[in-house]
């Protein structure tokens, strides 16, 4: 259906997921809901403590709902030499979930205040 990813087939792509992870992999297949089959999945950046470019999985299906973006990987000369992938600390991307921290506490407070205000009102009307 969606032919937009056709040009990327069998090429190296950079994948960003909704949980904020970033990978490099070869795109093997896709469908109209952006489910992707990828091979030779590796981390985009290599941390200092695991300098080997370990393959995370040989073939894997990634659910379309977890995909944020998929970009064609065109490494610069310096990067093919394997230099700029070695970053001491891999930079983080936010997730797309837009979660409020400790949201349940906020709603608990709202509920408490509601209880208070209704009891107060009752007292007043009596």
């Amino acid at each position, binding site marked *: 259906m969606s032919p*937009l990813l056709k040009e990327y087939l069998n090429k190296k792509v950079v994948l*960003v997921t909704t949980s904020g992870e970033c990978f490099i992999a070869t795109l093997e297949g896709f469908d109209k809901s952006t489910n992707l089959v990828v091979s030779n999945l590796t981390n985009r*950046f290599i941390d200092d403590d695991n300098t080997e470019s370990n393959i995370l999985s040989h073939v894997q299906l990634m659910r379309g709902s977890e995909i*944020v*973006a*998929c970009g064609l990987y065109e490494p*610069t000369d310096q*990067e093919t030499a394997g230099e700029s992938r070695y970053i001491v600390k891999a*930079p983080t*991307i936010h997730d797309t979930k837009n979660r409020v921290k400790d949201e349940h506490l906020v709603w608990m407070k709202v509920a408490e205040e509601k209880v208070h205000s209704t009891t107060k009102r009752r007292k007043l009307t009596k």
Partner: protein
Amino acid sequence: MLFFSFFKTLVDQEVVVQLKNDIELKGTLQSVDQFLNLKLDNISCTDEEKYPHLVSVRNIFIRGSTVRYVYLNKNMVDTNLLQDATRREAMSERK
């Protein structure tokens, strides 16, 4: 389908896309599909130091569901025409 058509008129123009993970990408709109998935060419990240993930990427596919905003230049949009088209679409749905 109105915004699909709308985005099709913006092809080959430069746009800035803000994603829900707060990354902003500037690039030329290459193509768009019915889910409003976007394909941008010649991208650059507005905050490259913070997000170096896409430095060696020039052509990118963005899933429509993860887009927060698409920033457009004012002169790229004919708002009157868009309003007319919106009314026409609303009318045709009512029938």
